[in-house]
C-alpha cells in the first residue's frame, strides 16, 4: 500500500479529477455539509494526505464563524463604535474560532504534497500534519470531535483495528465519518460502473500518471471492500451508536456515520 501511494502522490489530485470526472469534489463537499462543524471543532482527518477534506473544513468553519459574528453584531445594535471595533478585533484573530484539523497519513510523500498545497492555497493556521498509521494512531484517547477517513479506509489492512482506533481517539459524543467507494445495487448501473472501472480507469492511470498497476489495484480494492451494510455492522461492533449510511450516486460512494456515546 505504501509503495502504491508513494508513486501516486504527486499525481493523486489530477487522477482523482479525471477518474471521477471531478465529482469527487462534490462528494467531499457533501461530506462536509453532513458534518456541519461548528467553530471550535477539532477534526482528525486520517489518510487525508493531500488535504482535500482539511481545506474544506477550514473554509466551512470560517464561513460559519463569519455568519455567527454577523448575527451577534446585528443583535448588538446599540453598542458604541468602540465596543464594536473591539469585538471585531477579538474575532479577527480568531477567524477559525479555535477549530483545528490534524491531517494524518501513512505516507510521507502524500503529506508533503498536502503541505505544499496548503502553502500554495494560503492555508496556514489551524492545520497540523502528522505521520501515522490508521491502525495505530499516535494520539491520546478522547481527543477529537470528529474523525474522518475519506477514500482511505479501503486501503487499511485491518479495518476493525482502524475503527477501534477511531473510537479510542474520539471524545464522548464525537462523530466518525467515513467516505468510501461502496457497492452499487442497481444492476444496470453496476454493469456500466464495472465497465468504466476496469476499462477506463487503468488506462487513465497509465496515460496521466504513467502507472497502470496502481490503478488496477485501486479498482480491485474497491470491489473487495465490504458493502454498506457490512461496514455498518463493523462500525457498530466497535461500539459506535446511531450508525447510518448515505449512498451517493446510487452506491458508487457511501458516507457512513457513527457516534461515540
Amino acid at each position, binding site marked *: 500500500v505504501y509503495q502504491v501511494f508513494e508513486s501516486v502522490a504527486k499525481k493523486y489530485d489530477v487522477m482523482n479529477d479525471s477518474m471521477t470526472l471531478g465529482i469527487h469534489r462534490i462528494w467531499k463537499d457533501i461530506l462536509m455539509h*453532513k*458534518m*456541519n*462543524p*461548528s467553530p*471550535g*471543532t477539532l477534526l482528525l482527518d486520517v489518510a487525508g494526505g493531500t488535504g482535500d477534506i482539511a481545506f474544506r473544513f477550514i473554509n466551512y468553519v470560517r464561513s460559519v464563524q463569519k455568519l*455567527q459574528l454577523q448575527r451577534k453584531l446585528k443583535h448588538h445594535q446599540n453598542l458604541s463604535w468602540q465596543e464594536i471595533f473591539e469585538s471585531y478585533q477579538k474575532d479577527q484573530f480568531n477567524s477559525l474560532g479555535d477549530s483545528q484539523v490534524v491531517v494524518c497519513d501513512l505516507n510521507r510523500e502524500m503529506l508533503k504534497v498536502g503541505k505544499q498545497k496548503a502553502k500554495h492555497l494560503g492555508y496556514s493556521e489551524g492545520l497540523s500534519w502528522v505521520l501515522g498509521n490508521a491502525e495505530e494512531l499516535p494520539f491520546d484517547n478522547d481527543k477529537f*470531535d*470528529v474523525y474522518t477517513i475519506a477514500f482511505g479506509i479501503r486501503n487499511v489492512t485491518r479495518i476493525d483495528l482502524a475503527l477501534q482506533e477511531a473510537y479510542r481517539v*474520539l*471524545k*464522548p*459524543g*464525537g*462523530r466518525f465519518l467515513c467516505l468510501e467507494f461502496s457497492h452499487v445495487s442497481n444492476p444496470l448501473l453496476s454493469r456500466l460502473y464495472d465497465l468504466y472501472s476496469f476499462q477506463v480507469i487503468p488506462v487513465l492511470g497509465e496515460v496521466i500518471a504513467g502507472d497502470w498497476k496502481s490503478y488496477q489495484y485501486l479498482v480491485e480494492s474497491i470491489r473487495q471492500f465490504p458493502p454498506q451494510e457490512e461496514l455498518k*455492522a463493523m462500525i*457498530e*461492533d466497535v*461500539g459506535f*451508536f*446511531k450508525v*447510518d*449510511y*448515505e449512498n451517493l450516486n446510487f452506491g458508487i460512494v457511501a458516507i457512513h*456515520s457513527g*457516534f*461515540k*456515546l
Partner: protein
Amino acid sequence: VRCQHYPPLRALQASATLRRASDEQKKEPLTSSSQQHFDSPPAGHQPEREPQGPRPSYTGHGGQESEDYESEEQLQHRILTAALEFVPEHGWTAEAIAEGAKTLGLSVAAAGMFHSDGSELILHFVSECNAKLSKLLEKEQKLVQLGEAEKKPVDEFLRHAVEARLRMLIPYIEKWPQALSVLLLPRNIPSSLNLLTSMIDDIWHYAGDQSTDFNWYTRRAVLTGIYNTTELVMMQDSSPDFEDTWRFLENRVADAMTMSNTASQVQSTGEAVVQGLMGAAVTVSS
C-alpha cells in the same frame, strides 16, 4: 467469526455523560406522555434499526450492567433539554444543540445526531410543554375532586388552559416565529399536527365538558382554531404581560360559546376560515 452479541441492547459506554437510571429519577415523561410522543424523529435517511426494547426487560448476558444504562433516545432527550437553555441566544438551531451537548460533557459533534434545522429540538420542546400542561391540569383536577377548589365553567377552563400553555412560550418568544415556520415544513407536519391535536384532546378531556352541543370533531377544531390564532396574536403582542393576547383569547372563547349556544355562524369570516382549515387539517391527519 463475530462473537455473539445482541446489537440493539448494548449498554452505552459509561462515559461522564451517560448515567445509570438509578442515579436519577426514572424517566417517566417518556411513558406518561406516550400519547403525545411524536412519531419517531423525522431524520430523513435513517434506516430502521431493530427496535430498542425498554431497558428494564433486558436480561441477556452481562445483565448486571445493562438494566441501568440509558438508551440513545434518553440521551438525545437530555441533550435537547440542555439545548433549550441556549435557544434564546442561538435560536432553534444546531448551534443551540451543540451548546447543549457541551454542557453535558459531550463533543459538539454530537449535534450531528439531529437535523441541522433544529426540528427535533422544537418538537421536543412542544412535547415537553404539552406534558407540563397535562400535569398541571391533572393536578388541578385532583384539587377539584378533593373539594379543595371550585370546578371552573367550561369557558373559563379553556381560557385558563390555553393561557397556561401559551405562557410556556414566553422565555422563547423572540425565536418562536422561527420555530413555527419549521413546524410547518412538510417533513414535520405529521409530528407537529399530532402533538397539537393530542394537546387539544387533553384540554377537552380535563375540561370534562358533557355538553352535547358540539360533536367531537367540531370541538377539536374550534379549540385548535382558538389556540392557533391566539398563538399568532401573541407573537405580535407587545403589551405588558401580553394582556392584549389574553383579552383576545377571552373574546374568542366567548365567541365559541356563543356559537354553540345559538348555533349561529361565527362573526368574523377570517376566524371561520382558520377554524375550517384547522378542522380540515385535523380531519385529514386523523
